[in-house]
């Protein structure tokens, strides 16, 4: 095999699409002039991880969740409560958090995923709100509405302070998460999920365990959110119940839809828009919320399939 052919084969591999992103991640810090940039970029990738998981659930399996921030809350409070109250160091707490999220997703997912459409929406919404209420009220454990401080994660004997390490960690995690998602989509499970999106009955007739597949993707999405929640808590060294609130859940859904349902890069674009926009709009002070609402409405009205698919379609049209 000639080297050129080998390269061509590599370029056709589905994971090749992640290479440009990896290059951007490596080069972007060259433009960062202060820690603030690292922080905003880390936040973008953290929310992109959660949005990516939710996108698998919404974009591919066609199941909506309005309570997904609940799992972010579980991840966040695990790294907060573990070291402070239970004497577990941050790294095992982080893993434990992901496992708790997984368990909760299995237990809750089974009955919830039987519901359809708006009923699924309200049930997941209720689940998220319940968790947020619990985090607010169990003040002995969580510090109540004022929140609690989170200890630094120690990696290789060094505590991770500041935003820079979290930029690298969250960006790398996003790449790994995206690679996993791309593989999942191309697997038999991925095809079954897209089948569920198109027609649940037809997919069941083909002998697919629809309930099992739905539950599986719900659990995967929960773990993504849990990881993102843990990172968020460790980056901020502080956590309040807002992390799992209704507005956070809505924000995650908005990221998915804004970027483009069923688009991996869309999750990143959606997260970037909704994280960076408020930072940029802070310049407008009082008009911040008004502008945010207007932009969200505008994008959804004029690019209703989401930013990435709409732009891609526009490019494809021009080429013809």
């Amino acid at each position: 095999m000639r080297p050129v052919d080998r390269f061509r084969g590599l370029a056709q591999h589905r994971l090749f699409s992640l290479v440009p992103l990896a290059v951007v991640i490596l080069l972007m810090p060259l433009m960062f002039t202060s820690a603030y940039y690292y922080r905003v970029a880390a936040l973008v990738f953290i929310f992109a991880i959660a949005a990516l998981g939710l996108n698998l659930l919404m974009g591919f399996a066609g199941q909506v969740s309005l309570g997904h921030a609940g799992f972010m809350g579980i991840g966040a409070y695990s790294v907060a409560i573990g070291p402070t109250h239970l004497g577990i160091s941050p790294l095992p707490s982080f893993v434990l958090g992901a496992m708790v999220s997984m368990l909760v997703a299995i237990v809750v997912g089974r009955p919830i995923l039987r519901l359809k459409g708006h009923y699924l929406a309200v049930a997941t919404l209720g689940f998220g709100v319940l968790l947020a209420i619990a985090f607010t009220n169990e003040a002995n454990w969580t510090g109540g509405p004022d929140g609690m401080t989170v200890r630094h994660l120690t990696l290789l004997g060094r505590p991770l302070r500041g935003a820079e390490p979290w930029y690298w960690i969250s960006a790398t995690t996003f790449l790994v998460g995206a690679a996993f998602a791309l593989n999942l989509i191309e697997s038999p499970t991925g095809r079954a999920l897209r089948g569920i999106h198109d027609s649940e009955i037809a997919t069941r007739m083909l002998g697919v365990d629809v309930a099992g597949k739905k539950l599986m993707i719900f659990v995967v999405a929960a773990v993504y959110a849990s990881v993102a929640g843990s990172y968020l808590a460790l980056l901020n060294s502080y956590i309040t119940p807002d992390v799992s609130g209704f507005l956070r859940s809505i924000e995650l859904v908005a990221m998915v839809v804004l970027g483009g349902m069923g688009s991996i890069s869309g999750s990143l674009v959606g997260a970037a828009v909704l994280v960076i926009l408020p930072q940029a709009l802070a310049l407008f002070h009082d008009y911040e919320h008004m502008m945010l609402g207007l932009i969200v409405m505008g994008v959804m009205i004029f690019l209703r399939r989401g930013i990435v698919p709409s732009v891609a379609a526009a490019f494809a049209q021009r080429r013809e």
Partner: protein
Amino acid sequence: MAEFLQFLFSGLTVGAIYALVAIGFTLIYNASDVVNFAQGEFVMLGGMTTVFLGYAGVPLPLATIFAILATTAVGFALYRLAIATAHEADAVTLIIITIGASIFIRGAAEIVFDKRFHSLPPLFSSDPIRIGGAAILPQSLVVLAGALIILLLLWGFIERTLFGKAVIATSANRIAARLVGINTQIIVGACFAAAAAIGAIAGILVTPITLTSYNVGTLLALKGFASAMLGGIGSATGAVVGGILLGLLEALAAGYVSASYKDAVAFLVILAVLFAMPQGLFGKAKVERV
């Protein structure tokens, strides 16, 4: 017993407001399949506009009427400018649009009004009436009576007028309605306007009891949506029963279980009901729309 009666009164009052929000939800959902998360903002706009017109020296009855008209205009504008422009977008996209609208309306209220809590004087006296050892504010009775009148008027209008029949036809099947010569655009726009007006009236009625501020809409939209789902989405009876039930549950939970967990109990019950009856209490089978 007196205690129970007390919880019952406060539950009914709050429940009536939830019911009004839920009926607004249902009206819009039936006409257009849109789940309108900006419904709570109408309630906020009604209360806040009345309050600030009052501050500006406008006599309250006039302020009330103007606030309802202004909110109605906002509701119609939401349909005309956002929903109709994005017509035939899928359900989740439409939901995000209404959430964007609610963020926008809240942001605008922050600037036009302010971030403080405000109240209105009650219609009658503020001395509670004693019934069987419990106390009920006259304004609570006003809220209940107001809710009842609105629901009866709405029911009469839908059932007894030609325009109401057109609304029913549009809810049943939009394309078929268009085929028999109904201008469904006008019907759906009117439903948005009516839902906004109902929300505004609810906001004005309840402000003397619960106060109002620029951000009361979010939680109300959440509770209203939950009420509509509890009753079964699309069912008007369900919306009213769901709203009252949710209000009662919250009040009883706050009284007997724990005040800080009252919202939790409401949502636990909703989850339980949905697990047992996946279509809500009064919902019809089928319908998958998201």
